[in-house]
């Protein structure tokens, strides 16, 4: 009987072990963004960790021109939207282009990078929720391939001579998936729901006194107290808590309450959601398509597929296997470690999300030692950017050094202020600064989220560098949920890592880590220069002036270091060869995509 008892104990321990293994296994799979994505870092749709949303650069050509405003007077206070320069062409792999004729029908199965927890994009910034929204909902303006806001539900718009009144007319015949007409009051209600959350719209209201009202059933008026060129940049859907236009039963919910209903005007109609398993949408036959060619999220979208299924497969290796045997047709972002298996399989296509994600060391500006600019400078001077990215990502095809605080391979490319400061690895100079600041031996707590990709290795490298500089480093392993809670209390940490996503490409105003007190780093901008530069940027008249001010911002960021910039990394995506027309960079949307028999 003793033997039996012993075996029972062994069995119980085994079961506990199995449960424990299971937890860690799952946790290593992006959630999601949280995962994990961007996890939280990257799992955010537009506002990544740094507050910026990031969008992969399009290996592309000039975007089709959007219809111009009907009135755009030339005047001192120019309020015209700032045209975004055509992005430079960058692509690590050629986009598998489509040949042959598009074919109607079929169900495309794709694996998202994390688990869907809510279908309300005005309640969460998770990228998996953004996928639902992009396919089923639409906003006044959406981003095209050049990351410029392009009209979607708007037909035409005009601006008053003084630049203080903007009027937008909705397109005729817009309907929700249940057949109800879209009204101007829905637009006002939808923006009202997120007015305290949506990054750029919040700024438009706060700094420029924006007020949105309905004028009849199909027109919207925005009045300002000060002219600005940022209006269109503030009302498109690529911002946190995206202002999609939603019917009254959704937009009247408090923003803190997640909607259970998916109802929009998008080209796909939401069918069902089995939490933890999949969500399904089908082609909406009554979709009111725009006339312009499709361009990223903008333009006229053609849906060839009968339906799409976003199927959750938590384990990365299992995703690759499912793609290889044809159980699914495509994968959203996955770990670069699995790229060789895609490259070696002639049935599969590989895509690389460039400009991908930007990462840095986020330091706590409210406490010693990093409240001292000399200590931040020391870490910057000592930090081995290449070694960190190699440790965290691996193959250099999937990362790059980056000398700007937004995103490389975009219109923000500059090295202003970085010379002699970025990736110099001057340990002696760094140690001298530490000695000067008198912080040798001070305890530094580095939070290390073990359930996220990339970040644990960055934390390990940072801990190593700080140890070399003479700090008493406490490398604290935890999960992302714990890190998310602890970073909100500046008393509990000195450094952590995350990444920011697509929003980076939209410019420094969405990069809350660069703003005074803007994000968890609680950057203090003691000189006030960054705030002044941001205000100038917000009032720039054109793209050229924007870029000029941006270079000043970048140079000052390298001087004052809101965070210690490390570089960018580029998650891969994949599809089977029978998937045609799909170009998932910058957004893995499934219109203009078909399945070849």
């Amino acid at each position, binding site marked *: 009987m003793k033997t*039996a008892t012993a*075996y029972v104990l062994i069995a*119980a321990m085994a079961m506990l072990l199995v449960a424990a293994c*299971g937890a860690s296994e799952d946790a290593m799979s992006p959630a999601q963004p949280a995962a994990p994505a961007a996890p939280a870092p990257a799992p955010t749709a537009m*506002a990544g960790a740094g507050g910026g949303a990031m969008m992969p650069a399009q290996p592309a050509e000039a975007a089709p021109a959007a219809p111009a405003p009907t009135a755009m007077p030339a005047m001192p206070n120019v309020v015209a939207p700032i045209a975004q320069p055509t992005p430079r062409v960058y692509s690590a792999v050629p986009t598998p282009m489509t040949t042959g004729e598009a074919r109607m029908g079929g169900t495309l199965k794709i694996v998202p990078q994390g688990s869907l927890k809510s279908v309300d994009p005005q309640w969460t*910034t998770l990228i998996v929720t953004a996928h639902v929204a992009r396919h089923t909902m639409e906003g006044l303006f959406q981003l095209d391939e050049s990351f410029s806001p392009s009209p979607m539900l708007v037909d035409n718009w005009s601006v008053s001579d003084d630049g203080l009144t903007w009027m937008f007319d909705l397109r005729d015949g817009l309907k929700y998936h249940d057949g109800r007409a879209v009204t101007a009051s829905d637009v006002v209600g939808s923006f009202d729901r997120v007015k305290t959350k949506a990054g750029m719209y919040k700024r438009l209201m706060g700094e420029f006194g924006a007020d949105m009202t309905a004028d009849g059933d199909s027109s919207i008026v925005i009045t300002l107290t000060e002219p600005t060129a940022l209006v269109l940049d503030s009302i498109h859907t690529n911002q946190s808590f995206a202002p999609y236009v939603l019917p009254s039963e959704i937009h009247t919910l408090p923003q803190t309450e997640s909607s*259970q209903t998916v109802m929009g005007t998008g080209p796909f109609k939401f069918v069902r959601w089995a939490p933890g398993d999949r969500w399904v949408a089908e082609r909406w036959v009554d979709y009111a398509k725009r006339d312009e060619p499709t361009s990223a999220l903008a333009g006229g979208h053609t849906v060839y597929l009968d339906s799409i299924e976003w199927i959750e497969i938590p384990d990365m290796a299992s995703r690759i296997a499912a793609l*290889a045997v044809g*159980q699914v047709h495509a994968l959203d972002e996955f770990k670069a470690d699995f790229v060789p298996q895609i490259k070696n399989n002639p049935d599969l296509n590989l895509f690389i999300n460039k400009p991908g994600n930007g990462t840095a060391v986020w330091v706590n500006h409210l406490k010693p030692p990093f409240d001292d600019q000399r200590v931040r400078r020391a870490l910057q001077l000592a930090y081995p950017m290449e070694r960190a990215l190699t440790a965290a990502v691996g193959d250099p095809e999937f990362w790059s050094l980056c000398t700007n605080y937004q995103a490389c391979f975009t219109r923000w490319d500059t090295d202003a202020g970085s010379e002699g400061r970025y990736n110099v690895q001057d340990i002696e100079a760094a140690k001298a600064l530490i000695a000067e600041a008198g912080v040798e031996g001070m305890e530094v707590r580095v939070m290390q989220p073990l359930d996220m990709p990339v970040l644990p290795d960055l934390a390990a490298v940072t801990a190593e560098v700080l140890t070399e500089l003479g700090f008493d480093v406490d490398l604290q392993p935890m999960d992302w949920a714990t890190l998310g809670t602890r970073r909100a209390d500046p008393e509990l940490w000195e450094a952590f890592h995350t990444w920011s996503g697509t929003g980076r490409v939209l410019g420094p105003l969405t990069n809350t880590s660069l703003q005074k007190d803007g*994000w968890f780093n609680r950057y203090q901008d003691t000189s006030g220069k960054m705030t002044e530069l941001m205000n100038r940027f917000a009032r720039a008249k054109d793209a050229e002036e924007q870029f000029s001010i941006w270079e000043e911002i970048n140079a000052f960021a390298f001087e004052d270091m809101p965070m210690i910039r490390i570089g960018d990394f580029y998650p891969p995506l994949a599809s089977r060869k029978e998937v045609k027309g799909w170009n998932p960079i910058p957004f893995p949307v499934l219109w203009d995509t078909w399945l070849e028999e």
Partner: protein
Amino acid sequence: MSVYIVRRLLASIPVILMVGIITFSILHISPGDPAVLMAGEEATPEDVEKMRQALGFDKPFYVQFGVWVGNLLRGDLGTSIFSKHSIASLMAPRLQPTLSLGLIAIVLSVLMGIPMGVLAASYAGSLTDRGVMIFAVLGFSVPVFWLGFIFIWLFAVEARIFPAVGFVPISEGILPYLRSLTLPAFANAIPFSALVARMTRSTMVEVLQEDYIRTARAKGLAELLVVGRHALRNASIPIVTVIGLVFAALVSGAVVTETVFAIPGLGRLLVDAVVRRDYPIVQAMLMVTAVAYVFVNLIIDIVYAYLDPRIRY
């Protein structure tokens, strides 16, 4: 017996209550705040506080606990913080995959483990015995996720016999249903069959040395009957104990297997909830697991009485 069962059921109430108090307490003192996760990356402390109020997390611990127990007594397991679905509605569709996987795995474990154990015990010290024990040690030592990946690679990617991932409900056909469960069930069954084999061997070796076995052989009874009728039945109590505990573990969610094979079962529901700090789901799942263990233990005790008439309650 019925008095015993009622007494056991009543005795399980404080056990389950204790589980409830402990899990509720641990979850609420553990780091990680769902309000922070829900409020989003750009949330201010004020946003987080509003979210906490909206979720009721600003109330004292005992009030939250009282509300939860009250709802539980009314049969309301609660609502997911994130998806806003009722937990019962989240668990219901996951019962079929988890129970199916658990039942098939347990059947496979028993079908593989007991014959191997009997064989090893019958030829104790022989090469057969050592072979079975090597399998048992290896089978129990190999991580389930590794077995899962090997099975996927061999039988899905290379041989294309079984699907790599996913679960097909039985309503879509018995064959697709069984095909979808074959690899995960074997991945789950191998470690447990190894455990059952070791347990069976160990107890059978003891029993086979008893006097009544020698008597049975002396009477000229066929070895198959000696082993099968006289020895195995008397060796079965610890085996049943192990099988019962394995069953309880499997029905409360085979987390690793469900993750590797992307089976939307209870185990994944629990892990997702832990990662997200979706407290109501974690609490409900732990309660369900506790209840499963209590009932499985009760059933094991009843089976004891059936297997050994000397046991009376």
